[in-house]
């Protein structure tokens, strides 16, 4: 976005400002589009079935969104840099089992400390997986799609080898650990608030910090980003470690939410996360979109699914509908960006004459 201002330095100020304004406007409309869709879904669903607005239902939808939004935060950061992390669901599974089984070894320390240790284990496992992904992508010079497809298998396989036939049962976990997912403030889970704050911080970082802006530059044009001196390898590496750490935390939260854990925790969830990110307006080939959008995409996806369930659509339809939603979102983005390019080009020719 900012690059347009630089490229056309010689053009009159009014033209530059308005071109930038136009682009900003479109992206803002895109973000408001998700909110509007969210509003329409909520209104229609609550007219058809007033129960939809009950505190209990809101609590369930927000509770379901928390883990998805956290994963979407990490995934969006990676996708903005024109990479993709397919391994997050496997990282989640590994971290969930590692932190859940830690409790059976942590009888000594008080519960609070044990929970802190569980979170540290989750973050540690997640970051380690992120380091592997990041190193293979940047040092190994291998496309991240292939790397994370491979580590998707490898991390899940390690999980299966460690777990074997066993599982963590809910009774082995302390009650306070479950309360993390359950406690809520006027039907808004505390955890949702925490994740919202984290997403806000992530958005601020990507928007206002140099290393955050670098990710957008890399995503728009990796080669150009390298030539202007951005340490592309280091930035992409950082994005993968961040995504791994988020998946690690999500794993601990998964353990706290479901209690019973075997080696299949979260299997196949990566595509839902990418769906949420894409619905949230992050371009699949990087360079544009925000993590707030991605988190809102997660919220929209879950709200639509909950609304369909509440108004009595068979749950067998949910998968087909989320598929259609992804296709609709990417088609819409494509049409909007075509229109925008067209409008900008017309504007440029007008000002040139």
């Amino acid at each position, binding site marked *: 976005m900012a690059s347009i201002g630089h490229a056309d330095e010689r053009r009159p100020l009014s033209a530059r400002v308005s071109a930038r304004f136009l682009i900003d406007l479109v992206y803002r409309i895109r973000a408001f589009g998700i909110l509007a869709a969210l509003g329409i879904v909520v209104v229609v669903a609550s007219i058809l079935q007033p129960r939809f607005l009950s505190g209990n239902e809101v609590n369930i939808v927000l509770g379901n969104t928390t883990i998805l939004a956290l994963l979407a935060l990490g995934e969006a950061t990676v996708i903005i840099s024109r990479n*993709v992390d397919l391994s997050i669901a496997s990282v989640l599974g590994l971290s969930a089992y590692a932190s859940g089984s830690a409790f059976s070894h942590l009888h000594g320390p008080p519960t609070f400390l044990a929970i802190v240790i569980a979170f540290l284990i989750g973050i540690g496992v997640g970051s380690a997986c992120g380091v592997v992904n990041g190193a*293979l992508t940047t040092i*190994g*010079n*291998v*496309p991240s*799609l*292939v*790397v994370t*497809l*491979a*580590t*998707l*298998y*490898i991390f*899940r*396989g*390690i999980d*299966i*080898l460690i777990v*074997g036939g066993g599982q963590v049962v809910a009774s082995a976990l302390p009650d306070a650990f479950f309360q993390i997912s359950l406690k809520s403030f006027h039907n808004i889970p505390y955890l949702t608030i925490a994740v919202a704050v984290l997403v806000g911080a992530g958005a601020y970082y990507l928007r206002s910090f140099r290393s955050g802006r670098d990710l957008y530059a890399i995503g728009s044009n990796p080669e150009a980003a390298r030539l202007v001196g951005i340490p592309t390898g280091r930035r992409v590496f950082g994005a993968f470690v961040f995504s791994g750490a988020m998946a690690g935390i999500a794993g601990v939260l998964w353990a706290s939410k479901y209690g019973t854990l075997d*080696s299949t925790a979260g299997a*196949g969830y990566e*595509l839902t996360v*990418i*769906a949420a990110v*894409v619905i949230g307006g992050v371009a*699949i*080939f990087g360079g544009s979109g925000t993590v707030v959008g991605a988190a809102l995409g997660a919220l929209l996806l879950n709200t639509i699914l909950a609304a369909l369930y509440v108004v009595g659509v*068979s749950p*067998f*339809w*949910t*998968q*087909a*509908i*989320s*598929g*259609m939603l*992804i*296709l609709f979102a*990417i*088609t819409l983005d*494509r049409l909007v960006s*075509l229109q925008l390019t067209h409008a900008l080009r017309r504007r440029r020719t007008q000002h040139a004459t």
Partner: protein
Amino acid sequence: MRPDLKERLRPLLRWESGLFVVLMAIVILGTQVSSQFLTQGNLFYLCISIGEIAIMTLPLTLVIITGEIDLSVASVLGLSSALLGYLVSHGWELWPTFLLVLVVGAAAGMFNGVLVTRVGLPSLAVTIGTLTFYRGLAVVILGPNIISSFPEKYTSIGVNPVGNTFLSYSVLFFLVLAVMFGVLLHLTPVGRSLFAIGLNTEAATFAGMRVKRIKLLLFVLSGVVCAFAGILYTFRLSTAVQDNGLGLELNAVAIVLLGGVSIFGGRGSIVGVVLAVFVYASLQNVLFLTNFPQRAFGIVTGCLLLVSVLVPNASYFLERARALRARTRPARPVLEVD
């Protein structure tokens, strides 16, 4: 080494010959690990475990060579399996059912292709969407039902070998299709143009190739072939359920890349993919004979995938290492050692 000898040995350094050596090594390892490995029963088991995935890798190879990707292959398989089960349980004759299933497969591929070529969306995003969508349709069609009322004449082809050999019908179909795809890719102008498209789409367009139409047809082909694989899959298990073939798309992609096909397009061969299919299947089989937990086989798949993309980069690593050394040490005079 004499230069002409070096030149003559060059073809041996191809990716395919490496795969062949690996395959032989696995076979030797297999015979060492278990006396069961080379028995007819085990080889037949090896064949039926890979047949449908192998069939799906063929059109996927062509799609990846043009620089696109189709992640919806296993969902098309699942959709066609669900449709087959639904229609048969509603009293349809088998042959019209087959026809309809294949047509639906073609339509599914066409939908992917139109979104990619006419709307201009990235195939990665489109096929992640249709992966979910087609699987969702399979769920809608069958719901929680399990259909297993297929005529034995057809289900027996899934569990019986071809004549007195160890080949399953699915692998026989795979080999026949592989020859057809090999001829198409390597010996016809259209096939050769796929490489051009994968290397540089724009240049291919300016050279007069109908890039969009060719890509569209490849997606349709992928849909039809995967629907066919779905029919075989259903008859092998003599069961149609909503999650038939769930997650197989990643195995198929892994095998294609292991076969030396570049994820960026423009490079690869059918021979490599066929060898990769057998490397994958025999490795899985050998580990199965050694009581390696079968569900953890993903570790091996993942490592194979990493190796197959890291090895071609070896020259890049050497260059970088040399560059690093050159920076720390003064450059030595270049000497011809001859």
